Protein backbone atom coordinates (compact mmCIF):
# COMPACT_ATOMS: atom_id res chain seq x y z
CA UNK A 1 0.00 0.00 0.00
CA UNK A 2 1.37 3.37 -0.92
CA UNK A 3 0.93 6.07 1.65
CA UNK A 4 2.11 9.57 2.11
CA UNK A 5 2.27 11.65 5.21
CA UNK A 6 0.65 14.98 5.76
CA UNK A 7 3.62 17.26 5.44
CA UNK A 8 2.51 20.67 6.65
CA UNK A 9 4.15 21.96 9.81
CA UNK A 10 2.08 21.25 12.89
CA UNK A 11 -0.17 18.78 11.07
CA UNK A 12 -0.72 15.26 12.39
CA UNK A 13 1.82 12.82 11.11
CA UNK A 14 -0.25 9.70 10.41
CA UNK A 15 -0.29 8.10 6.98
CA UNK A 16 -3.03 8.97 4.53
CA UNK A 17 -3.62 6.58 1.64
CA UNK A 18 -5.01 8.57 -1.18
CA UNK A 19 -4.39 6.78 -4.44
CA UNK A 20 -7.94 6.90 -5.69
CA UNK A 21 -10.19 8.87 -3.34
CA UNK A 22 -11.16 12.03 -5.15
CA UNK A 23 -14.11 14.35 -5.63
CA UNK A 24 -17.14 12.84 -7.34
CA UNK A 25 -18.27 14.65 -10.46
CA UNK A 26 -20.81 12.20 -11.89
CA UNK A 27 -24.59 12.42 -11.80
CA UNK A 28 -26.96 11.39 -9.02
CA UNK A 29 -30.23 9.50 -9.28
CA UNK A 30 -33.60 10.77 -8.08
CA UNK A 31 -34.72 10.21 -4.45
CA UNK A 32 -37.29 7.59 -5.51
CA UNK A 33 -34.41 5.21 -6.25
CA UNK A 34 -33.59 5.05 -2.53
CA UNK A 35 -36.55 2.71 -1.96
CA UNK A 36 -35.17 0.18 -4.41
CA UNK A 37 -31.66 0.56 -2.98
CA UNK A 38 -32.87 -0.15 0.56
CA UNK A 39 -34.85 -3.20 -0.60
CA UNK A 40 -32.04 -4.59 -2.76
CA UNK A 41 -29.37 -4.35 -0.06
CA UNK A 42 -31.80 -5.90 2.44
CA UNK A 43 -32.33 -8.89 0.16
CA UNK A 44 -28.58 -9.32 -0.32
CA UNK A 45 -28.02 -9.18 3.44
CA UNK A 46 -30.86 -11.66 4.08
CA UNK A 47 -29.35 -14.14 1.67
CA UNK A 48 -26.45 -14.51 4.11
CA UNK A 49 -28.80 -15.84 6.80
CA UNK A 50 -29.27 -19.56 7.18
CA UNK A 51 -32.94 -19.20 8.13
CA UNK A 52 -33.78 -17.57 4.80
CA UNK A 53 -32.04 -20.32 2.86
CA UNK A 54 -33.76 -23.04 4.93
CA UNK A 55 -37.18 -21.45 4.40
CA UNK A 56 -36.54 -21.15 0.67
CA UNK A 57 -35.42 -24.78 0.60
CA UNK A 58 -38.60 -25.81 2.41
CA UNK A 59 -40.59 -23.79 -0.12
CA UNK A 60 -38.79 -25.56 -2.95
CA UNK A 61 -39.59 -28.98 -1.47
CA UNK A 62 -43.25 -28.05 -1.01
CA UNK A 63 -43.34 -26.69 -4.54
CA UNK A 64 -42.00 -29.99 -5.88
CA UNK A 65 -44.43 -32.04 -3.76
CA UNK A 66 -47.47 -29.98 -4.68
CA UNK A 67 -46.47 -29.98 -8.34
CA UNK A 68 -46.36 -33.78 -8.37
CA UNK A 69 -49.68 -33.97 -6.51
CA UNK A 70 -51.35 -31.36 -8.74
CA UNK A 71 -49.96 -32.95 -11.89
CA UNK A 72 -51.29 -36.37 -10.87
CA UNK A 73 -54.67 -34.90 -9.90
CA UNK A 74 -55.05 -32.95 -13.12
CA UNK A 75 -53.91 -35.91 -15.24
CA UNK A 76 -56.52 -38.08 -13.52
CA UNK A 77 -59.14 -35.37 -14.12
CA UNK A 78 -58.20 -35.32 -17.76
CA UNK A 79 -58.60 -39.12 -17.91
CA UNK A 80 -62.05 -38.90 -16.29
CA UNK A 81 -63.09 -36.24 -18.74
CA UNK A 82 -61.87 -38.37 -21.61
CA UNK A 83 -64.19 -41.11 -20.35
CA UNK A 84 -67.17 -38.73 -20.46
CA UNK A 85 -67.33 -37.77 -16.81
CA UNK A 86 -66.49 -34.10 -17.45
CA UNK A 87 -69.69 -32.73 -15.92
CA UNK A 88 -69.21 -34.71 -12.73
CA UNK A 89 -65.59 -33.55 -12.41
CA UNK A 90 -66.53 -29.94 -13.00
CA UNK A 91 -69.21 -30.20 -10.34
CA UNK A 92 -66.83 -31.70 -7.77
CA UNK A 93 -64.01 -29.28 -8.35
CA UNK A 94 -62.74 -26.78 -10.86
CA UNK A 95 -59.13 -27.80 -11.55
CA UNK A 96 -58.25 -24.29 -12.72
CA UNK A 97 -59.04 -22.95 -9.25
CA UNK A 98 -56.41 -25.29 -7.84
CA UNK A 99 -53.73 -23.17 -9.50
CA UNK A 100 -54.43 -20.27 -7.15
CA UNK A 101 -55.65 -22.03 -4.02
CA UNK A 102 -53.05 -24.78 -4.07
CA UNK A 103 -50.25 -22.26 -4.53
CA UNK A 104 -51.42 -20.28 -1.51
CA UNK A 105 -51.90 -23.39 0.63
CA UNK A 106 -48.58 -24.90 -0.48
CA UNK A 107 -46.47 -21.91 0.48
CA UNK A 108 -48.13 -20.44 3.53
CA UNK A 109 -45.62 -21.90 5.98
CA UNK A 110 -42.42 -20.95 4.11
CA UNK A 111 -43.93 -17.53 3.43
CA UNK A 112 -44.63 -16.96 7.11
CA UNK A 113 -41.05 -17.93 7.99
CA UNK A 114 -39.45 -15.96 5.16
CA UNK A 115 -41.26 -12.79 6.22
CA UNK A 116 -40.31 -13.53 9.81
CA UNK A 117 -36.60 -13.81 8.98
CA UNK A 118 -36.64 -10.88 6.56
CA UNK A 119 -39.07 -8.49 8.20
CA UNK A 120 -39.65 -9.21 11.87
CA UNK A 121 -36.04 -8.39 12.76
CA UNK A 122 -35.47 -5.65 10.22
CA UNK A 123 -36.27 -2.51 12.19
CA UNK A 124 -35.30 -4.06 15.53
CA UNK A 125 -31.83 -4.84 14.19
CA UNK A 126 -31.51 -1.36 12.72
CA UNK A 127 -32.43 0.17 16.06
CA UNK A 128 -29.87 -1.98 17.82
CA UNK A 129 -27.04 -1.39 15.34
CA UNK A 130 -27.57 2.37 15.01
CA UNK A 131 -28.64 2.03 11.39
CA UNK A 132 -31.26 4.76 11.79
CA UNK A 133 -28.46 7.30 12.03
CA UNK A 134 -26.87 5.68 8.99
CA UNK A 135 -30.05 6.03 6.94
CA UNK A 136 -31.47 9.32 8.12
CA UNK A 137 -28.21 11.25 7.99
CA UNK A 138 -28.44 10.60 4.25
CA UNK A 139 -31.04 11.84 1.79
CA UNK A 140 -33.57 9.26 2.98
CA UNK A 141 -37.03 10.00 4.38
CA UNK A 142 -39.01 7.82 6.75
CA UNK A 143 -41.32 6.90 3.87
CA UNK A 144 -38.40 5.76 1.69
CA UNK A 145 -37.04 3.69 4.54
CA UNK A 146 -40.34 2.05 5.45
CA UNK A 147 -41.35 1.16 1.89
CA UNK A 148 -37.84 -0.11 1.23
CA UNK A 149 -37.97 -2.30 4.33
CA UNK A 150 -41.46 -3.51 3.29
CA UNK A 151 -40.20 -4.56 -0.13
CA UNK A 152 -37.15 -6.15 1.46
CA UNK A 153 -39.36 -8.09 3.86
CA UNK A 154 -41.47 -9.61 1.08
CA UNK A 155 -38.84 -10.02 -1.63
CA UNK A 156 -37.88 -13.66 -1.16
CA UNK A 157 -41.40 -14.70 -0.19
CA UNK A 158 -42.93 -13.06 -3.26
CA UNK A 159 -40.37 -14.77 -5.47
CA UNK A 160 -41.26 -18.15 -3.98
CA UNK A 161 -45.02 -17.54 -4.25
CA UNK A 162 -44.88 -16.28 -7.81
CA UNK A 163 -42.65 -19.15 -8.94
CA UNK A 164 -45.13 -21.57 -7.37
CA UNK A 165 -48.10 -19.89 -9.02
CA UNK A 166 -46.38 -19.78 -12.40
CA UNK A 167 -45.26 -23.38 -12.25
CA UNK A 168 -48.70 -24.67 -11.24
CA UNK A 169 -50.34 -22.55 -13.96
CA UNK A 170 -47.97 -23.95 -16.58
CA UNK A 171 -48.57 -27.46 -15.32
CA UNK A 172 -52.32 -26.93 -15.46
CA UNK A 173 -52.11 -25.71 -19.06
CA UNK A 174 -49.95 -28.72 -19.88
CA UNK A 175 -52.54 -31.07 -18.40
CA UNK A 176 -55.44 -29.73 -20.45
CA UNK A 177 -56.57 -26.56 -18.64
CA UNK A 178 -58.00 -23.80 -20.83
CA UNK A 179 -55.61 -20.89 -21.00
CA UNK A 180 -58.19 -18.18 -20.21
CA UNK A 181 -59.45 -20.04 -17.14
CA UNK A 182 -55.90 -20.67 -15.90
CA UNK A 183 -54.95 -17.03 -16.40
CA UNK A 184 -58.01 -15.96 -14.41
CA UNK A 185 -56.99 -18.26 -11.57
CA UNK A 186 -53.41 -17.05 -11.84
CA UNK A 187 -54.56 -13.43 -11.49
CA UNK A 188 -56.73 -14.33 -8.46
CA UNK A 189 -53.71 -16.09 -6.98
CA UNK A 190 -51.55 -13.01 -7.54
CA UNK A 191 -54.07 -10.89 -5.64
CA UNK A 192 -53.99 -13.43 -2.81
CA UNK A 193 -50.20 -13.41 -2.72
CA UNK A 194 -50.15 -9.61 -2.68
CA UNK A 195 -52.66 -9.40 0.17
CA UNK A 196 -50.89 -12.10 2.17
CA UNK A 197 -47.50 -10.49 1.83
CA UNK A 198 -48.85 -7.05 2.68
CA UNK A 199 -50.56 -8.34 5.83
CA UNK A 200 -47.59 -10.45 6.95
CA UNK A 201 -45.00 -7.76 6.24
CA UNK A 202 -47.08 -5.07 7.93
CA UNK A 203 -47.43 -7.17 11.08
CA UNK A 204 -43.72 -8.11 10.95
CA UNK A 205 -42.51 -4.52 10.60
CA UNK A 206 -44.96 -3.28 13.22
CA UNK A 207 -43.69 -5.88 15.70
CA UNK A 208 -40.10 -5.15 14.70
CA UNK A 209 -40.46 -1.44 15.39
CA UNK A 210 -41.54 -2.05 18.99
CA UNK A 211 -38.27 -3.49 20.27
CA UNK A 212 -34.52 -3.69 19.74
CA UNK A 213 -34.62 -7.47 20.24
CA UNK A 214 -35.03 -9.45 17.06
CA UNK A 215 -36.10 -12.60 18.90
CA UNK A 216 -38.88 -10.77 20.74
CA UNK A 217 -40.14 -9.18 17.53
CA UNK A 218 -40.19 -12.57 15.80
CA UNK A 219 -42.05 -14.13 18.71
CA UNK A 220 -44.70 -11.38 18.67
CA UNK A 221 -45.07 -11.80 14.91
CA UNK A 222 -45.45 -15.57 15.11
CA UNK A 223 -47.84 -15.18 18.04
CA UNK A 224 -50.07 -12.84 16.06
CA UNK A 225 -50.00 -14.93 12.90
CA UNK A 226 -50.55 -18.22 14.73
CA UNK A 227 -52.99 -16.79 17.26
CA UNK A 228 -55.26 -15.17 14.70
CA UNK A 229 -55.25 -18.35 12.61
CA UNK A 230 -56.28 -20.48 15.59
CA UNK A 231 -59.00 -18.04 16.64
CA UNK A 232 -60.29 -17.64 13.07
CA UNK A 233 -60.41 -21.37 12.46
CA UNK A 234 -62.11 -21.98 15.82
CA UNK A 235 -64.77 -19.33 15.24
CA UNK A 236 -65.33 -20.45 11.68
CA UNK A 237 -65.91 -24.06 12.80
CA UNK A 238 -67.97 -23.17 15.88
CA UNK A 239 -70.28 -20.71 14.17
CA UNK A 240 -70.21 -22.35 10.78
CA UNK A 241 -69.32 -19.06 9.13
CA UNK A 242 -66.52 -18.75 6.58
CA UNK A 243 -66.40 -15.03 7.20
CA UNK A 244 -64.49 -15.63 10.44
CA UNK A 245 -61.54 -16.90 8.39
CA UNK A 246 -60.97 -13.28 7.42
CA UNK A 247 -59.63 -12.61 10.93
CA UNK A 248 -56.50 -14.63 10.25
CA UNK A 249 -53.44 -12.63 9.18
CA UNK A 250 -52.33 -15.40 6.86
CA UNK A 251 -55.68 -17.08 6.07
CA UNK A 252 -57.58 -14.00 4.96
CA UNK A 253 -55.66 -13.91 1.70
CA UNK A 254 -56.75 -17.46 0.84
CA UNK A 255 -60.35 -16.47 1.59
CA UNK A 256 -59.94 -13.42 -0.63
CA UNK A 257 -58.66 -15.54 -3.50
CA UNK A 258 -61.47 -18.04 -2.99
CA UNK A 259 -63.92 -15.13 -3.05
CA UNK A 260 -62.49 -13.94 -6.37
CA UNK A 261 -62.87 -17.47 -7.70
CA UNK A 262 -66.41 -17.71 -6.30
CA UNK A 263 -65.72 -20.62 -4.00
CA UNK A 264 -65.51 -18.96 -0.58
CA UNK A 265 -69.20 -19.32 0.26
CA UNK A 266 -69.31 -15.65 1.28
CA UNK A 267 -72.23 -13.55 0.18
CA UNK A 268 -72.99 -9.84 -0.01
CA UNK A 269 -70.90 -7.42 2.00
CA UNK A 270 -69.17 -10.36 3.72
CA UNK A 271 -67.31 -10.91 0.46
CA UNK A 272 -65.27 -7.80 1.26
CA UNK A 273 -64.22 -9.04 4.69
CA UNK A 274 -61.04 -10.96 3.70
CA UNK A 275 -59.84 -8.08 1.54
CA UNK A 276 -60.53 -5.54 4.26
CA UNK A 277 -58.90 -7.70 6.89
CA UNK A 278 -55.66 -8.19 4.93
CA UNK A 279 -55.43 -4.51 4.14
CA UNK A 280 -56.20 -3.59 7.75
CA UNK A 281 -53.50 -5.89 9.16
CA UNK A 282 -50.93 -4.51 6.74
CA UNK A 283 -51.92 -0.89 7.30
CA UNK A 284 -52.03 -1.23 11.08
CA UNK A 285 -48.53 -2.70 11.21
CA UNK A 286 -47.08 -0.11 8.86
CA UNK A 287 -48.78 2.75 10.71
CA UNK A 288 -47.34 1.51 13.98
CA UNK A 289 -43.87 1.25 12.45
CA UNK A 290 -44.20 4.72 10.91
CA UNK A 291 -45.20 6.27 14.23
CA UNK A 292 -42.30 4.58 15.99
CA UNK A 293 -39.85 5.71 13.34
CA UNK A 294 -41.02 9.29 13.63
CA UNK A 295 -40.33 9.18 17.34
CA UNK A 296 -37.13 7.15 17.30
CA UNK A 297 -34.25 8.47 19.34
CA UNK A 298 -32.26 9.54 16.31
CA UNK A 299 -34.98 12.07 15.58
CA UNK A 300 -35.14 13.31 19.13
CA UNK A 301 -31.45 14.15 19.32
Amino acid at each position, binding site marked *: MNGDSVAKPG*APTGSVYDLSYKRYT*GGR*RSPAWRIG*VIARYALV*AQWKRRGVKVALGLGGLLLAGFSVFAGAKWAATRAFQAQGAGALVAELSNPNHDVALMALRAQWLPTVFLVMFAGAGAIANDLK*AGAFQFHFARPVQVGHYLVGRLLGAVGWASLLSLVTLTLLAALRVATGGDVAGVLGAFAAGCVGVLLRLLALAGVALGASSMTRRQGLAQTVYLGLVGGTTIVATGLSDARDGAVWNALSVVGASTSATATLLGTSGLEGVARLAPFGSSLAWGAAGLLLAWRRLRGAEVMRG
Partner: protein
Amino acid sequence: MTNVARRYEGVTALDGVSLAIPPGRTALLGPNGAGKSTLLKILLGLVKPTEGRVEVLGHDPQRDPLAVRLRVGYMPEDDAHLPDMNAVELCAYGAELAGLPPAEAIERAHAALFYVGIDDKRYLPVESYSTGLRQRAKLAAAIVHDPDLLFLDEPTNGLDPQAREEMLSLVYDLKDRRGCDVVLSTHLLSDVERVCSHVIVLGAGKVLADAPLKSLIEHDDPAYELRIKGDRARFVEALKAKGCALQEGGPGPTLMVVPPALGDPSAIWEAAVASDTQVRSLVPRRHSLDEAFLKLLR
Protein backbone atom coordinates in the same frame (compact mmCIF):
# COMPACT_ATOMS: atom_id res chain seq x y z
CA MET B 1 -27.99 29.65 12.53
CA THR B 2 -29.82 32.50 14.21
CA ASN B 3 -31.31 32.44 17.68
CA VAL B 4 -31.91 28.69 17.61
CA ALA B 5 -33.48 27.02 20.62
CA ARG B 6 -34.46 23.41 21.19
CA ARG B 7 -36.43 22.48 24.26
CA TYR B 8 -37.54 19.04 25.37
CA GLU B 9 -39.91 18.37 28.22
CA GLY B 10 -38.32 20.32 31.05
CA VAL B 11 -34.90 20.42 29.39
CA THR B 12 -33.37 23.13 27.25
CA ALA B 13 -30.80 21.55 24.97
CA LEU B 14 -30.06 24.73 23.01
CA ASP B 15 -30.93 28.24 24.11
CA GLY B 16 -30.75 31.13 21.64
CA VAL B 17 -27.75 29.86 19.71
CA SER B 18 -26.53 32.11 16.92
CA LEU B 19 -23.40 31.21 15.03
CA ALA B 20 -21.87 30.92 11.58
CA ILE B 21 -19.50 28.04 10.97
CA PRO B 22 -16.61 29.28 8.83
CA PRO B 23 -14.96 27.20 6.09
CA GLY B 24 -12.13 24.99 7.29
CA ARG B 25 -11.87 22.70 10.29
CA THR B 26 -14.11 23.88 13.09
CA ALA B 27 -14.30 22.33 16.54
CA LEU B 28 -17.54 22.05 18.42
CA LEU B 29 -16.42 21.83 22.01
CA GLY B 30 -18.38 21.35 25.18
CA PRO B 31 -18.92 19.09 28.15
CA ASN B 32 -21.45 16.25 28.06
CA GLY B 33 -24.96 17.64 27.76
CA ALA B 34 -23.79 20.93 26.31
CA GLY B 35 -26.01 20.48 23.25
CA LYS B 36 -23.39 19.43 20.68
CA SER B 37 -25.29 16.39 19.37
CA THR B 38 -28.56 18.31 19.26
CA LEU B 39 -26.84 21.06 17.28
CA LEU B 40 -25.49 18.55 14.75
CA LYS B 41 -28.89 16.90 14.39
CA ILE B 42 -30.55 20.27 13.83
CA LEU B 43 -27.98 21.00 11.13
CA LEU B 44 -28.81 17.65 9.51
CA GLY B 45 -32.55 18.31 9.69
CA LEU B 46 -33.13 15.37 12.02
CA VAL B 47 -34.28 17.53 14.92
CA LYS B 48 -36.62 20.48 14.52
CA PRO B 49 -35.60 23.58 16.46
CA THR B 50 -38.24 24.95 18.80
CA GLU B 51 -37.41 28.40 17.48
CA GLY B 52 -34.84 30.13 15.31
CA ARG B 53 -33.60 29.87 11.77
CA VAL B 54 -31.00 27.48 10.33
CA GLU B 55 -29.26 27.42 6.99
CA VAL B 56 -26.73 24.84 5.84
CA LEU B 57 -24.94 25.27 2.51
CA GLY B 58 -27.73 27.55 1.34
CA HIS B 59 -30.58 25.21 2.32
CA ASP B 60 -33.00 25.14 5.24
CA PRO B 61 -32.58 21.68 6.85
CA GLN B 62 -36.24 21.65 7.92
CA ARG B 63 -37.72 22.60 4.57
CA ASP B 64 -35.28 20.76 2.37
CA PRO B 65 -33.46 18.14 4.45
CA LEU B 66 -32.61 15.92 1.50
CA ALA B 67 -30.73 18.72 -0.27
CA VAL B 68 -28.69 19.31 2.90
CA ARG B 69 -27.94 15.64 3.51
CA LEU B 70 -26.91 15.15 -0.10
CA ARG B 71 -24.00 17.53 0.48
CA VAL B 72 -23.23 16.69 4.09
CA GLY B 73 -21.52 13.66 5.59
CA TYR B 74 -22.12 12.56 9.17
CA MET B 75 -19.99 10.25 11.27
CA PRO B 76 -21.99 9.56 14.46
CA GLU B 77 -20.38 8.86 17.79
CA ASP B 78 -22.24 5.58 18.30
CA ASP B 79 -22.09 2.52 16.12
CA ALA B 80 -23.92 3.06 12.85
CA HIS B 81 -23.66 -0.02 10.68
CA LEU B 82 -26.08 -2.53 9.24
CA PRO B 83 -26.21 -6.14 10.36
CA ASP B 84 -24.79 -8.73 7.92
CA MET B 85 -22.98 -6.13 5.84
CA ASN B 86 -19.25 -5.89 5.25
CA ALA B 87 -17.45 -2.55 4.92
CA VAL B 88 -17.59 -2.51 1.12
CA GLU B 89 -21.34 -3.15 1.10
CA LEU B 90 -21.88 -0.59 3.86
CA CYS B 91 -20.04 2.15 1.99
CA ALA B 92 -21.56 1.27 -1.38
CA TYR B 93 -24.99 1.28 0.26
CA GLY B 94 -24.34 4.72 1.73
CA ALA B 95 -23.19 5.99 -1.67
CA GLU B 96 -26.25 4.61 -3.46
CA LEU B 97 -28.53 6.16 -0.85
CA ALA B 98 -26.90 9.47 -1.75
CA GLY B 99 -27.86 8.91 -5.38
CA LEU B 100 -24.71 7.43 -6.89
CA PRO B 101 -25.25 4.71 -9.54
CA PRO B 102 -24.29 1.16 -8.37
CA ALA B 103 -21.05 0.88 -10.36
CA GLU B 104 -19.83 4.28 -9.16
CA ALA B 105 -20.90 3.44 -5.62
CA ILE B 106 -18.80 0.28 -5.51
CA GLU B 107 -15.80 2.07 -7.01
CA ARG B 108 -16.01 4.91 -4.51
CA ALA B 109 -16.58 2.48 -1.63
CA HIS B 110 -13.24 0.84 -2.38
CA ALA B 111 -11.56 4.23 -2.81
CA ALA B 112 -12.95 5.56 0.48
CA LEU B 113 -11.97 2.40 2.37
CA PHE B 114 -8.48 2.57 0.92
CA TYR B 115 -8.29 6.23 1.88
CA VAL B 116 -9.12 5.52 5.52
CA GLY B 117 -6.69 2.60 5.63
CA ILE B 118 -9.00 -0.44 5.62
CA ASP B 119 -7.56 -2.88 3.15
CA ASP B 120 -7.75 -6.65 3.52
CA LYS B 121 -10.46 -6.56 6.19
CA ARG B 122 -12.99 -4.74 4.03
CA TYR B 123 -14.88 -7.95 3.23
CA LEU B 124 -15.39 -8.89 6.88
CA PRO B 125 -18.69 -8.01 8.62
CA VAL B 126 -18.41 -4.58 10.24
CA GLU B 127 -19.73 -5.93 13.56
CA SER B 128 -16.57 -8.06 13.81
CA TYR B 129 -14.27 -5.01 13.62
CA SER B 130 -12.19 -3.55 16.43
CA THR B 131 -13.07 -0.07 17.69
CA GLY B 132 -10.41 1.53 15.50
CA LEU B 133 -11.59 -0.22 12.36
CA ARG B 134 -15.20 0.66 13.12
CA GLN B 135 -14.28 4.31 13.43
CA ARG B 136 -12.48 4.13 10.09
CA ALA B 137 -15.41 2.34 8.46
CA LYS B 138 -17.78 5.01 9.78
CA LEU B 139 -15.54 7.73 8.36
CA ALA B 140 -15.38 5.97 4.98
CA ALA B 141 -19.18 5.66 4.94
CA ALA B 142 -19.48 9.35 5.80
CA ILE B 143 -17.26 10.54 2.96
CA VAL B 144 -18.08 7.99 0.26
CA HIS B 145 -20.68 10.21 -1.42
CA ASP B 146 -18.25 13.13 -1.56
CA PRO B 147 -19.78 15.63 0.88
CA ASP B 148 -18.87 19.31 0.90
CA LEU B 149 -19.27 19.46 4.67
CA LEU B 150 -18.50 16.71 7.15
CA PHE B 151 -19.80 16.40 10.71
CA LEU B 152 -17.60 14.19 12.89
CA ASP B 153 -18.93 13.27 16.31
CA GLU B 154 -16.10 12.17 18.62
CA PRO B 155 -14.09 10.48 15.83
CA THR B 156 -11.14 9.54 18.03
CA ASN B 157 -13.13 7.91 20.81
CA GLY B 158 -11.60 4.64 21.93
CA LEU B 159 -8.60 4.82 19.58
CA ASP B 160 -5.04 3.95 20.55
CA PRO B 161 -2.40 6.69 20.04
CA GLN B 162 -1.34 5.52 16.59
CA ALA B 163 -4.89 5.09 15.34
CA ARG B 164 -5.79 8.47 16.81
CA GLU B 165 -2.92 10.13 14.99
CA GLU B 166 -4.01 8.53 11.73
CA MET B 167 -7.64 9.58 12.25
CA LEU B 168 -6.53 13.17 12.92
CA SER B 169 -4.37 13.04 9.80
CA LEU B 170 -7.43 12.07 7.79
CA VAL B 171 -9.43 14.92 9.32
CA TYR B 172 -6.63 17.30 8.43
CA ASP B 173 -6.27 15.93 4.93
CA LEU B 174 -9.98 16.07 4.17
CA LYS B 175 -9.90 19.85 4.23
CA ASP B 176 -6.33 20.40 3.23
CA ARG B 177 -6.34 18.39 0.03
CA ARG B 178 -9.94 17.34 -0.65
CA GLY B 179 -11.62 20.66 0.00
CA CYS B 180 -14.16 19.22 2.43
CA ASP B 181 -15.03 21.48 5.37
CA VAL B 182 -15.11 19.67 8.70
CA VAL B 183 -17.01 20.22 11.93
CA LEU B 184 -15.41 18.18 14.70
CA SER B 185 -17.57 17.64 17.76
CA THR B 186 -15.41 16.49 20.63
CA HIS B 187 -14.48 16.96 24.24
CA LEU B 188 -10.81 16.12 23.59
CA LEU B 189 -9.05 19.47 23.57
CA SER B 190 -5.79 18.04 22.32
CA ASP B 191 -7.55 16.84 19.14
CA VAL B 192 -8.87 20.32 18.57
CA GLU B 193 -5.44 21.88 19.00
CA ARG B 194 -4.01 19.44 16.48
CA VAL B 195 -6.37 19.96 13.59
CA CYS B 196 -8.85 22.80 14.05
CA SER B 197 -8.52 26.44 13.13
CA HIS B 198 -11.79 27.67 14.61
CA VAL B 199 -13.51 26.78 17.88
CA ILE B 200 -17.10 27.00 19.01
CA VAL B 201 -17.59 26.29 22.70
CA LEU B 202 -21.02 25.25 23.92
CA GLY B 203 -22.06 25.11 27.56
CA ALA B 204 -25.55 24.47 28.92
CA GLY B 205 -27.05 25.06 25.50
CA LYS B 206 -25.41 28.43 24.92
CA VAL B 207 -22.46 29.56 22.81
CA LEU B 208 -19.66 30.45 25.21
CA ALA B 209 -17.08 31.19 22.55
CA ASP B 210 -16.97 31.36 18.78
CA ALA B 211 -13.51 32.37 17.68
CA PRO B 212 -10.36 31.31 15.86
CA LEU B 213 -8.31 28.84 17.89
CA LYS B 214 -5.35 31.23 17.84
CA SER B 215 -7.27 34.00 19.58
CA LEU B 216 -8.46 31.62 22.29
CA ILE B 217 -5.03 30.39 23.22
CA GLU B 218 -3.22 33.71 22.99
CA HIS B 219 -2.88 35.27 26.39
CA ASP B 220 -4.33 38.69 27.00
CA ASP B 221 -1.65 39.61 29.51
CA PRO B 222 1.75 40.34 27.93
CA ALA B 223 3.88 37.95 29.98
CA TYR B 224 6.91 36.13 28.69
CA GLU B 225 8.11 32.66 29.61
CA LEU B 226 11.83 32.69 30.35
CA ARG B 227 14.35 29.92 30.87
CA ILE B 228 17.72 31.04 32.10
CA LYS B 229 21.16 29.77 33.03
CA GLY B 230 22.84 31.64 35.89
CA ASP B 231 22.04 33.06 39.30
CA ARG B 232 18.25 33.13 39.48
CA ALA B 233 18.03 35.41 42.56
CA ARG B 234 20.38 37.95 41.03
CA PHE B 235 18.45 37.93 37.76
CA VAL B 236 15.16 38.46 39.60
CA GLU B 237 16.62 41.44 41.38
CA ALA B 238 17.81 42.87 38.08
CA LEU B 239 14.39 42.36 36.54
CA LYS B 240 12.72 44.21 39.38
CA ALA B 241 15.23 47.00 39.04
CA LYS B 242 14.27 47.37 35.39
CA GLY B 243 10.56 47.64 36.30
CA CYS B 244 9.55 44.09 35.31
CA ALA B 245 6.84 42.23 37.23
CA LEU B 246 7.03 38.53 38.02
CA GLN B 247 4.04 36.21 37.92
CA GLU B 248 3.37 32.89 39.53
CA GLY B 249 2.84 29.81 37.42
CA GLY B 250 6.07 29.14 35.60
CA PRO B 251 6.83 25.42 35.65
CA GLY B 252 10.16 24.40 37.24
CA PRO B 253 12.99 26.75 36.28
CA THR B 254 10.71 28.87 34.10
CA LEU B 255 10.03 32.49 35.01
CA MET B 256 6.92 34.43 34.04
CA VAL B 257 7.90 38.03 33.47
CA VAL B 258 5.86 41.07 32.44
CA PRO B 259 8.08 43.84 31.08
CA PRO B 260 7.17 47.49 31.80
CA ALA B 261 6.53 48.26 28.11
CA LEU B 262 3.77 46.06 26.68
CA GLY B 263 5.10 43.79 23.95
CA ASP B 264 8.67 45.00 24.34
CA PRO B 265 11.00 42.53 26.08
CA SER B 266 14.08 44.82 25.90
CA ALA B 267 13.99 45.39 29.70
CA ILE B 268 14.40 41.63 30.14
CA TRP B 269 17.47 41.60 27.91
CA GLU B 270 18.93 44.53 29.85
CA ALA B 271 18.33 42.71 33.15
CA ALA B 272 20.08 39.65 31.77
CA VAL B 273 23.09 41.70 30.75
CA ALA B 274 23.16 43.48 34.10
CA SER B 275 23.03 40.23 36.10
CA ASP B 276 25.33 38.30 33.76
CA THR B 277 22.62 35.74 33.13
CA GLN B 278 22.20 33.65 30.00
CA VAL B 279 18.64 33.62 28.58
CA ARG B 280 18.06 30.15 27.08
CA SER B 281 14.55 30.86 25.83
CA LEU B 282 12.08 33.72 25.78
CA VAL B 283 8.58 33.21 24.36
CA PRO B 284 5.32 35.11 24.77
CA ARG B 285 3.15 33.27 27.24
CA ARG B 286 0.26 31.27 25.67
CA HIS B 287 -2.82 29.81 27.22
CA SER B 288 -3.35 26.15 26.64
CA LEU B 289 -6.77 25.38 25.20
CA ASP B 290 -7.51 23.54 28.43
CA GLU B 291 -7.05 26.77 30.38
CA ALA B 292 -9.19 28.75 27.96
CA PHE B 293 -11.89 26.07 27.99
CA LEU B 294 -12.05 25.85 31.77
CA LYS B 295 -12.11 29.63 32.04
CA LEU B 296 -15.07 29.78 29.65
CA LEU B 297 -16.98 27.10 31.54
CA ARG B 298 -16.49 28.94 34.82
